[in-house]
């Protein structure tokens, strides 16, 4: 097939809407008639009814959440709008939790599920005590909305599709482009929360997400390569996430790298130990899995043992403030209050206002990611470190249909106090390997990790000399973080929105990770396709 703009548009998922731009457009919010219940509910009354019902049934504590999740995609003719509502009640009875949820948002149903949550909890009172202590909650009622500059739900769908179709057109002008795929989604969640302690809050959260990837092919040398616009993932922003950013420049950069790949020789990897530069995307994944997941309080205490797994933090009472996770230059903190990050909220799903807190300081584990119940499990740690006993605000769930559990907070790895970029880091390597855009996996205690896919380059005297086929890293969490010899500076920090899954039934949520690239010494590099 000859590559022409026409063919590209034909093969680009969203090309057609842009090429058939309508004269008059409608935004998602013009569809109010399609989802009339969205505006006709007394949310505060429903929540109060559900909580009252649970307390009347005997609950010592109850909270209720009402969520309305809306989304639309830009990958086909219509926005394929989706709207779901859910009312969920969690009740505590003699230390046992019960939960009930429903899509039906009526007072009758609120009464039913409030009572049902207590019934669920009560059945477990069979003679043995379960101690449940909730960390104190500072009441902070109010309303909040993600500050977005351009609300995508108020912009005509056709305007959005035209904007994104422009990238297809632009891609068609780039050399050797063989396949160009892009996909985008905008979502919004109305979250209302109340509990029997008197907390009541209402917030509207926005997310914009996308994926842009392509292939290049030089038929004269029968070689293919690929590229990805890493700057696009999922963020707590509006349409400005795309409109105000130089997407075409990102695309050009990725394309340039892919073309450069075509000019490099391919070499098999010689397994061994190397100095390895891991890019921001790789570090973000390593950080979220090796430190983010491993410090979730419910994982640490075995509540995920039957599904996602546990943690290498096997004795938190001893390991907190003593476990050396990384070198002195490794500093990691959590912050769900940073505007624009995928996990940013004003209140978590227990009504807690999250603030920044340290996880790893000078390489030492200093905190766990806690919710209200989990904080009490490490009460001694809070006392020993002169911290008030409190939740760090990790409670989250995709909607009120699911019970709230601890999910990873937005994570940050401190860059070095330099202006070192990723290119500068590479230039500092005399003989080593650079790993780009890898898939990172860990075992079920987040202790042993390995990478697959992505791109691996042989680096000689600071330059990419060859592509190493099928190279992968194999590492242990503490060794990787202790073997870091160089961390990029502030200009090298990049943001990634990552999905994570846990729970039974499984829940998926998004959170942000902001990291610089790093150089690691003595990294084991293997040939992923080599069997024993």
């Amino acid at each position, binding site marked *: 097939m000859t590559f022409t703009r026409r063919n590209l548009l034909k093969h680009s998922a969203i090309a057609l809407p842009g090429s058939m731009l309508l004269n008059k457009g409608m935004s998602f919010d013009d569809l109010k008639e399609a989802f009339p219940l969205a505006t006709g509910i007394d949310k505060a009354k429903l929540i109060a009814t559900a909580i009252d019902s649970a307390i009347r049934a005997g609950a010592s504590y109850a909270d209720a959440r009402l969520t309305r999740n809306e989304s639309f995609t830009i990958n086909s003719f219509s926005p394929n709008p989706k709207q779901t509502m859910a009312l969920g009640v969690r009740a505590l009875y003699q230390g046992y939790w*019960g939960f009930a949820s429903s899509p039906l948002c009526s007072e009758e149903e609120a009464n039913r599920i409030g009572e049902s949550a207590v019934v669920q909890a009560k059945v477990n009172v069979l003679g043995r005590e379960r101690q449940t202590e909730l960390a104190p909650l500072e009441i902070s009622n109010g309303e909040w909305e993600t500050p977005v500059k351009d609300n995508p739900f108020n912009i005509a769908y056709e305007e959005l599709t035209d904007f994104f179709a422009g990238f297809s057109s632009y891609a068609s002008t780039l050399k050797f482009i063989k396949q160009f795929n892009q996909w985008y989604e905008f979502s919004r969640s109305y979250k209302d929360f109340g509990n029997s302690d008197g907390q009541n809050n209402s917030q509207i959260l926005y997310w914009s997400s996308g994926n842009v990837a392509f292939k290049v092919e030089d038929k004269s040398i029968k070689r293919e390569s690929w590229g990805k616009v890493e700057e696009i993932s999922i963020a707590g922003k509006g349409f400005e996430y795309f409109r105000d950013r130089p997407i075409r420049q990102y695309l050009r950069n990725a394309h340039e790298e892919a073309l450069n790949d075509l000019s490099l020789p391919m070499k098999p990897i010689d397994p061994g130990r190397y100095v390895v530069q891991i890019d921001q995307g790789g570090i973000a994944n390593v950080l979220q899995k090796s430190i983010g997941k491993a410090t979730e309080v419910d994982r640490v205490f075995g509540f995920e043992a039957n599904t996602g797994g546990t943690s290498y933090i096997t004795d938190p009472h001893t390991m907190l403030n003593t476990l050396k996770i990384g070198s002195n230059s490794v500093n990691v903190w959590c912050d769900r209050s940073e505007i624009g990050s995928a996990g940013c909220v004003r209140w978590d799903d227990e009504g807690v206002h999250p603030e920044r807190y340290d996880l790893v300081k000078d390489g030492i584990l200093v905190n766990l990611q806690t919710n209200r119940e989990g904080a009490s499990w490490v009460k001694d740690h809070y006392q020993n470190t002169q911290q008030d006993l409190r939740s760090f605000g990790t409670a989250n769930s995709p909607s009120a*249909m699911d019970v709230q559990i601890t999910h990873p907070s937005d994570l940050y790895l401190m860059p070095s106090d330099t202006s070192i970029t990723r290119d500068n880091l590479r230039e500092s390597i005399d003989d080593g390997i650079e790993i780009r855009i890898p898939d990172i996996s860990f075992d079920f205690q987040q202790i042993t990790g390995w990478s697959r896919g992505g791109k691996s380059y042989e680096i000689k005297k600071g330059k990419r000399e060859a592509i190493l086929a099928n190279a992968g890293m194999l590492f242990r969490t503490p060794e990787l973080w202790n073997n870091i010899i160089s961390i990029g500076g502030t200009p090298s920090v990049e943001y990634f929105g990552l999905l994570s899954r846990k729970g039974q039934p499984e829940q998926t949520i998004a959170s942000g990770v902001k990291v610089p690239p790093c150089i690691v010494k003595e990294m084991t590099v293997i040939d992923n396709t080599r069997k024993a």
Partner: protein
Amino acid sequence: MITVIEKGRRIFSEPDARSVIEELITHIPAENELSIRLGSWWGAGQRWARNRASLTSDQRDITLIISRPLSHRKQYPLSILATTNQIDSASLKGIGNHINVYFDKWKEKVPPDRILDVPSDIGEGTKVWSDATFDRSILENAEVVEQLTRQSESDNLMSSGFIGSTGSSAMHFYRDEWGRTDWKWGLVTQAECSVTVRDRNGNGSGWMGKTSFDINRVNIPELAAQALERCKLSLNPVRIEPGRYQVILEPQATAVFTELLMGAMSRGTPERAGGGILFLGDDRSIQRYKSKLGLKIIDERLNIFHEPSDPFFGSHVESLRRRIDLIKNGILTGMFDDYGSQLNEIADMYPAFYSTSYRMSGGSTSIEDMISSAKRAVLVARITQPEIVDPGSMLYTGVTRDGLWLIENGAITKSVRNFRWTESPLFVMNNVEEVGIEEQVFEPNGSRNPMNYGFSNSLNNVVVPPLKINDFSFTSTIDAV
């Protein structure tokens, strides 16, 4: 009009669902093709950890998906689609109007390339139902959990796990552009239980799990007892060298490789998903990949098939009225087709369908016999996290979990540390030493969306045997226990 699922009724009855759809249809012009899927779902969950119940839950949901197809072009089917879980009259009218507005905007702009007599994507009605599962009392679950956690507590071990019961109903209405209509109705239950017992110091872990449409086929006390026993047997594992070992894959471990193989069996077209190691290249004249249908791909003792009367799959499976052989005596004889084939002659020769319920026929050797006949081998309880490293050879990597034991001279001699493995399901199933007695494994339905299992095509009822495999590749040790 239904505005509330009546007290005590957790999912729609057939008249409930039909009345909702009939009301929605009134908002769509009668001459247009239309697809409406309405599902209702109920799930009860009993979760426990650290020897105490940690959450008991009751969840209900509704899914309504309405779709008006614009084009059936093979490569780029186009539909106007909207999804909600609200079914009051105002919502039905609103979502119907939305679909109409977008349909009218685009109908004149879509190339007239309709293909006549395209099969609809509608599934056949299904009833895979167990009253025992749907009526399972939460108190009964709580009492079972109380007993099994008391046992683990008295053994100074930590038990965690999940018991789940779900019931769902789904109706699919389809109307073609000539006004012919089709109604399908599905009822499905699923029960699941999985138990992990761990040593308090993290030096051992045992797991057992099972799923079935019928909770009476999931023996929870037995699973808990086995998980506890396995934890004790797995204590203080020792490191042995990675390398090639003869392995005995318990059914749960076998299922990982059969699932990978099944995942490669989608026919696909040259332009869409498909291809891979089971294909020989694209044939644009028939818009299909040429596949390895008719060629031997795995050991001749292995057969994979779907049998409607299989007692493990439920007693009233109506969707697949005849037996489908996917692999017969090691020969690839059937493939999935998730994209309506026009090639009926090919479909007749090699029936295409899509189902995740299947059985791999077993042999007569017990796991105990496999162990006693092994000189040096590794018994593998569970394999997780398979991830592709080389699509060309279907090579995956993953880890072992919750029980790995060294067998020497016909007996288990020690618990060993977990491994990362690197293998291809084709290599595994071409190096079969012995085939054991098949049993149903733990394969929970992955989604709560009733559309995904209101019809039988996504029900995970998997029955597979243990396999003794030669030259299995363990590539490195991992630290997790």
